[in-house]
């Protein structure tokens, strides 16, 4: 069974700080790793990572995959209060997404 583990479970930072979220995985047939942001409602798609070492960026968010060490990181630079959310990592295999438990990020003004 696919296993996705996120760390830390939660963290609190101040505006302007940089945040690094971790996602490790143990899966039988790797296809892609996805990151989502969830703010009290539906998760919204951030990134899909398939190839190792290629950074994906969107504004202040970036993510990279290491297929050798079986992990991914999500970075948020110059954090804002609007970045407060649960960040979910998920492995995509066949049709199915297997999620980690998520990291709750709280950004204080």
């Amino acid at each position: 069974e696919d296993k996705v583990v996120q760390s830390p479970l939660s963290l609190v930072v101040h505006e302007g700080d940089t945040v690094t979220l971790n996602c490790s995985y143990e899966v039988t047939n790797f296809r892609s790793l996805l990151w989502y942001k969830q703010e009290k409602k539906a998760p919204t798609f951030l990134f899909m990572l398939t190839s190792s070492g290629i950074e994906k960026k969107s504004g202040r968010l970036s993510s990279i995959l290491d297929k050798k060490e079986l992990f991914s990181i999500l970075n948020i630079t110059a954090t804002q209060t609007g970045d407060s959310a649960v960040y979910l990592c998920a492995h995509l295999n066949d049709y199915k997404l297997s999620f980690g438990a998520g990291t709750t990020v709280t950004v204080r003004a």
Partner: protein
Amino acid sequence: DAGITQSPRYKITETGRQVTLMCHQTWSHSYMFWYRQDLGHGLRLIYYSAAADITDKGEVPDGYVVSRSKTENFPLTLESATRSQTSVYFCASSERYGGRDGYTFGSGTRLTVV
């Protein structure tokens, strides 16, 4: 409106009752999914469907039934609700195998079984 909609947004039901959660998408996506979200467990897949009339079990299917007679609808039925089924339920859809564009989630249904 285009998108994926779930109904109801909130539902309280009694133990033993049958309840159906609705999911409707307007994109004609082939793939649809039902997840439940519980504290400490993240999102867990209940059932999924690759096309109309094709459904399959996910990680936690017990106590649930799905159908997909039309591409756009994917209802989830709790045949006899139990307190352990109190959760937030999300429906999702994807355009193609592998979800290159990412899975799109509905706004969720918060179900409480008393």
